[in-house]
């Protein structure tokens, strides 16, 4: 776990103030939190609860309900392997196993050096390129297990 204590940015605070009076604001605010920090840090969740005047338990209730929100910081390179049906049929399952094997971490965990994390996602919508993995927004399509090591190296070299 990252030991760093996050502090609320002025932009985030302004966003929360702007949304404070709108009904049903919580999920939109949490999206903004995750956009800012890459995850939902506990200290920010506490501050958000105070600013919005909702119980912290409600925030954690929502955060843990939805797959999109994460409580742990993702790696510098977040590998999203698609497990939509088309990718599954064309071997997406093997691709994710290969990433896990090569990186030595399971799904939804970050490597100790903080460089990589692996995530299984449901349909990235490029079924024509199945199976697909996305690393920080960059799409790698028509993957085979033998390509995986090369992709990891490519990002590792960037540091």
């Amino acid at each position, binding site marked *: 776990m990252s030991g760093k204590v996050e502090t609320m940015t002025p932009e985030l605070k302004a966003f929360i103030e702007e949304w404070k009076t709108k009904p049903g604001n919580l999920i939109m605010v949490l999206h903004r939190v995750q956009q800012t920090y890459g995850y939902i840090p506990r200290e920010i969740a506490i501050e958000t609860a105070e600013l919005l005047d909702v119980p912290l338990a409600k925030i954690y209730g929502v955060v843990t309900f939805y797959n999109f929100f994460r409580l742990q910081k993702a790696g510098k390179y977040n590998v999203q392997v698609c497990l939509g049906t088309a990718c599954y049929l064309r071997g997406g399952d093997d691709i994710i196993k290969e990433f896990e094997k090569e990186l030595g971490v399971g799904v939804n965990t970050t490597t100790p050096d903080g460089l990589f994390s692996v995530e299984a996602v449901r349909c990235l919508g490029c079924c024509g*390129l199945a199976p697909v993995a996305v690393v920080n927004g960059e799409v790698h399509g028509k993957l085979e297990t033998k390509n995986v090591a090369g992709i990891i190296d490519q990002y590792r070299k960037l540091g």
Partner: protein
Amino acid sequence: MGKLTLEDLRRMRGEKQKAIDMRDSSNKDVQVIVGMGTCGIAAGAKDTFTALVDSINEKGLTNVLIRQTGCMGLCHSEPTVEVVVPGMPAVIYGHVDAATAKEIVEKHVVGHELIEGKLLDRPSIDIIKNG
């Protein structure tokens, strides 16, 4: 632009339709249209777009309009590019990488010839125009 009235909207539609029918927005009579949905971009449509722009600049062509559109539905052949040249049927090419993009400009736009191997069929009639 200010708020439209009903008449403004109708006039705007008429003018814009005329422009499209003449295939002539600001003296550009050739259109090259790149499919830029998520799938197209994932398959490299941005590189295709850049290659088209470079190639057209290189040739000094001023009559070509390059624009983006959404998904043409031909996911198996992304990136896809439609080419509209006056006097020639409008056609769609699939698997347009940077090299093919260059070929499109040289052979199709300049040479008025269709390119081998990558041409695809338009998936459906246009219900706005023909239906």
